[in-house]
């Protein structure tokens, strides 16, 4: 028991060090700006729990982050560097919206699963393409996922601006999806999306799938050494592709749940780089599903806390963007270094 506890401590030492170092640098910055750095930091980290409505917003923020991070976990475990979370998220969100709007006359019992599955499928397709290209032709997946992000964002921009745009609203937003297919709020926490529960369940399910099933073991084997796995009889290429489909599907689900549970429509700017932040969370958690849930919660706390911090003190909320950059720079340095020594 103590041995496994030590293992856990050793595993989280590097990411925790990166987080603490980043927070320390941030504190120095904040102290140079405001006379109340402690107050600013309290708001940044804990204002999410001041009221039930703050808490609800926090859960809403954590939902897409968790799901995208889980997707990245699957991809990384299969040896694919999936930078495409943003594109997969947008594909899911726009597809759910389009289906919701186009099928507004359908009964909810048909439309809801259709919209949800459509979103998941769209994300999965966007994940499938780089997976196949990587495994079959060895096309670098970083490039394809990066490029696909921009392609998908341009497609959604066209749809949101020219095709399903709500002409009565300001900005590039679509018409609302019918209220009958809105996701019910979470029990006990009004205004929080019940999508969060889905994310939590999926985090634990991902752990079971990756570490307690044959399929998960094969995915990890394929990710560690594709040719070796192939040689020992594991259908590694297929596992990698499926893992990318799962990764895209999870990110697509994130977009879908956002539309059904929070936004109720597609907004071109709904994501503050969720794709990249989700990737950050997954890497910080060292591609562990439960860890990814924890880091996603931490990041949601920071993202929303920054807004409260800006209101109570005069520290700009973009401090968080700055800190994210620092964290990403620092954490990878630790991550790879630690991995090499192990």
């Amino acid at each position, binding site marked *: 028991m103590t041995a496994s506890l030590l293992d856990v401590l050793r595993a989280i030492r590097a990411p925790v060090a990166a987080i603490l170092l980043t927070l320390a640098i941030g504190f120095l910055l904040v102290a140079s*700006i405001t006379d109340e750095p402690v107050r600013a930091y309290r708001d940044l980290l804990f204002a999410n729990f001041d009221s039930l409505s703050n808490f609800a917003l926090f859960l809403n923020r954590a939902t897409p982050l968790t799901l995208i991070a889980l997707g990245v976990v699957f991809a990384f475990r299969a040896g694919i*560097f999936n*930078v495409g979370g943003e594109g997969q998220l947008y594909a899911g969100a726009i597809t759910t919206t389009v289906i919701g709007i186009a099928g507004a006359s359908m009964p909810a019992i048909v439309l809801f699963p259709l919209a949800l599955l459509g979103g998941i499928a769209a994300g999965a397709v966007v994940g499938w393409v780089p997976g196949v*290209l990587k495994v*079959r*032709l*060895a*096309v*670098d997946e*970083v*490039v*394809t996922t*990066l*490029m*696909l992000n*921009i*392609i998908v964002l*341009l*497609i959604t*921009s*066209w749809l949101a601006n*020219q095709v399903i745009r709500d002409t009565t609203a300001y900005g590039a937003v679509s018409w609302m999806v019918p209220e009958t297919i809105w996701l019910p709020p979470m029990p006990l926490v009004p205004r929080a999306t019940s999508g969060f529960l889905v994310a939590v369940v999926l985090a634990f399910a991902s752990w079971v799938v990756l570490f307690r099933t044959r399929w998960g073991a094969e995915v990890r084997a394929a990710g560690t050494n594709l040719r070796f796995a192939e040689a020992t009889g594991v259908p590694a290429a297929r596992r990698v592709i499926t893992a990318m489909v799962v990764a895209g599907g999870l990110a697509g689900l994130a977009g879908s749940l956002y539309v059904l549970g929070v936004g109720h429509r597609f907004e071109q700017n709904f994501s503050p*780089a969720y794709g*990249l932040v989700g*990737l950050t969370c997954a*890497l910080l958690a060292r591609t562990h599903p439960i860890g990814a849930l924890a880091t996603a919660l931490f990041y949601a706390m920071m993202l929303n806390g920054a807004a409260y911090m800006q209101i109570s003190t005069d520290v*700009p*909320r*973009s*401090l*968080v*963007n*700055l*800190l*994210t*950059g*620092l*964290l*990403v*720079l620092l*954490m*990878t*340095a*630790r*991550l*790879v*270094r630690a991995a*090499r020594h192990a």
Partner: protein
Amino acid sequence: MTLTALLASVLEQSTPILLAALAAMITLRANILNVAVEGMMLAAAFTAIAVGGWSGSALQGFLAAIVVAILFSQLLALLTLRFSADFIVAGLGINLLAAGGTLFILERYYNSPGGLRPIAFPEIWHIPVGSLSRIPVIGPAFEDQSIIVLIAILAVPLSYVFLYHTPLGSNLRAAGEDEHAARSAGIRIERMKALSLAISGLLAGLAGAQLAMDKLHFFLPDMTSGRGFIGLAATLFGGGLPWMTTAAAVLFGFFGALGDRLQVFAIPSQFVLMLPYLAAILGLTFARWRIHLRNRPAKVTDESA
């Protein structure tokens, strides 16, 4: 006359993309996929406006932009080469740091999160109007282009000569092609990679300076709007070869120039803007596919049938 206008517009659109493409190319030859070009461009664009507006000197703004971009590139080099961080993650970190840092400074020190517009901004040197009118069509297209456009055009043969006709350039390529072989030949890999990143920073700095200083004279938080990635796409499409990369960058610049005009034909601009990225994916896939076909084991044909 309209041909001249189109040519001028293509030149203007291509220059930052070309510089970004060369920036990505030089690191690609050292086996680094440089996703940080976008961030370095953004930091340079901001510095150009901030320093140029503050000092009233275009030269100082220009030089400061390049210095900042090189500093960012060396931060990336430090973290990846010294602390063995992953190039992709650290590169994305540089992008986030540049975007977050510029926004933070805008909010904190300029109190204008929307952007930075100095009331007066010094002009960078442009080719005087009328000086090239004797050359038909092409001459007028170059008139009123900034000096950075000329530098960008010069950078193409320079990068070619550097990569293929200098010892340093061959060492850099050797470091990128086979690390172990290069190391045993006495090439210092880390130094070569750091150098390629520094050159990349220089070129990305030029690209950022051009974006901010040429015509606009202001800075917006999302000013680079993916040009760094288009440059990366051009490099990948061009296979990391100077002339092919240049051709791809100019082609993509041409699409950009065309993008605004194509709406006349009822083609949404988004689909035109998409072309560089699609071209990069298809180009890479096609290249890999050809290699795949070549390396395919020979088919065993059943001759008795």
